[in-house]
């Protein structure tokens, strides 16, 4: 029983060991030279122009929420499609009801202007 967990224990030890080893070994080897470029968030990418703690458009959240709704819809549809041959007409009606409710929500969000950016 308990011996079944030995592979998991080994895995945990190896995973932790690898991370600790990498960090410790790197800190022993590297040279400590900090300058302005080095401390930037994206060391070899886009130059930051303003502070990161800034106000940004609420619409990002709206889009994110709309995305989640339709993402979840798909999550429900995949298992439904797999066992559709067992559910038959009843399953079809249930899915139509489900999608109808989502479409009502979508229509509402659309009419309320959630999809307009400007």
């Amino acid at each position, binding site marked *: 029983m308990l011996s079944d967990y030995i592979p998991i224990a080994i895995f945990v030890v190896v995973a932790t060991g690898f991370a600790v080893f990498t960090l410790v070994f790197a800190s022993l080897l590297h040279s400590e030279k900090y300058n302005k470029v080095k401390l930037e968030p994206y060391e070899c990418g886009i130059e930051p122009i303003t502070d990161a703690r800034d106000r940004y458009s609420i619409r990002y959240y709206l889009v994110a929420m709309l995305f989640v709704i339709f993402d979840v819809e798909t999550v429900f549809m995949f298992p439904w499609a797999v066992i559709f041959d067992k559910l038959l007409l009843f399953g079809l009606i249930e899915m139509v009801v489900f999608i109808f*409710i989502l479409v009502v929500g979508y229509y*509402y969000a659309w009419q309320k202007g959630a999809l307009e950016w400007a």
Partner: protein
Amino acid sequence: MPAGVSLRDFYYLLPELVLTGGALLVLIADVLLPRRSGHALAWITLLVLAATLASLGTFSGTHEVAHGLIAVDEFALFFKVVFLVSAAVTVLMSVRYLEIEGASPGEYYFLILCATLGMMILAGGIDLITIFIGLETMAVSFYILVGFIKPNQKSNEAAVKYFLLGAFSLGILLYGMSLLYGLSGTTNLRVMAPVFFGPETRHDPRLILAVMLVVAGVGFKIAAVPFHMWAPDVYEGAPTPVTAFLSVGSKAASFAMILRIFLEGLPAMVHDWQILFEALAIVTMTVGNLAALTQTNLKRMLAYSSIAHAGYILIGLVAGTPRGVSAMLIYLFIYTFMQLGAFTVIVLMRRRDVVGDELKDFSGLHFRHPYAAFAMLLFMLSLGGIPPTAGFMGKFWLFSAAIDAHYYWLAVIGVLNSAVSLYYYIRLVVFMYLKKDATGSEPSTTPALTVALAIAVVATIYIGIYPRVLFEIAEASARTLGVVGITAALP
């Protein structure tokens, strides 16, 4: 159609289906109707609630729907009527309030209907999964409703507090439920009950832990001390009609859930949860009343008073007899009307420039608007438990149920607490009738608010004088719950 599910099941779910369809209708009407048609939306919402109420009467008897996920019985019916009536009164209270606050009515009424739907599922749920879904539908709607007045910082703060604490308590409740499932192998309360009567599971420490966790989780929902910290801030910050609905509907639904879980699912553990609820009842009554004494904001005072009332209602659960359960139902019904009425008077005081929920706003109200003052007097007396109002009948029945079950000192503590509570209820009456200064604000009525007030006043007086019909219905409803099982388990 999958095995075991028939069209009959959908027939028994007709009220819930009507309400769901109605909620969608409100949402669509909001975008199709021209802007500023809050009155039309309120009418549609009231019609949906009326249609749902009517559809409750299309069948009778006791049924289990969809493999025992939902029970359709008189107990659920009793609570569904309470939810629908309180939702309707809340809508009546909200029309002008929303206009003053400038909030969009479509979403508001939609969320009220969604919360009602969650409550109805909760009242019928005899499976942990159904109970959880009902609870979430209700709670998520309330999280949004509490923060509905977006420019108001207090409203935002209340919503965040309620959401964070609510999510946390839900986690505790779920942990308890998962232990119950793990120990019994089923989520159905009625299948679970006999499993726990077995000699080896009964004294399992994990089962006791599960019971404690579930008690803590549901204790939050009814705002029992020491899980009550959220209530005053949320009640004060939320829009007043939402506060009313939260303190009435959410509380009644949570008590329905408690009765289902503990009487139907855990009668074997009666000695364990009885002592927990006994302690909760005593602490809740006492702390609620003592904290209410010093409040000068009426919504805050009513929040503490509603905490105290949850304590009184718990007495019926501790008694654990059919009489105790029917007393709980009676008290919840009465409490609904007196609490809604008190909040309606507070909404009356709301004007464009005055919030009107401070004690001083009510000073000398009798001389400016005698009817509103009289209604408030009636609700205060009823909340305090003075005859001939309904509140007296409810308290009388609760305490007599406790005495019946030989919990004498619990009844004594309840009576002492009612005496303490009279101080702060009467203090408001003193402000309204004996202070003659003109610092208070002027109430303004609309037909909708008058109707809401009239419903509450008539119910409070009618039940106080002629309680028999309600008592008989409540007793019949309590009988459909598995109370027989618990009385067999009692010594």
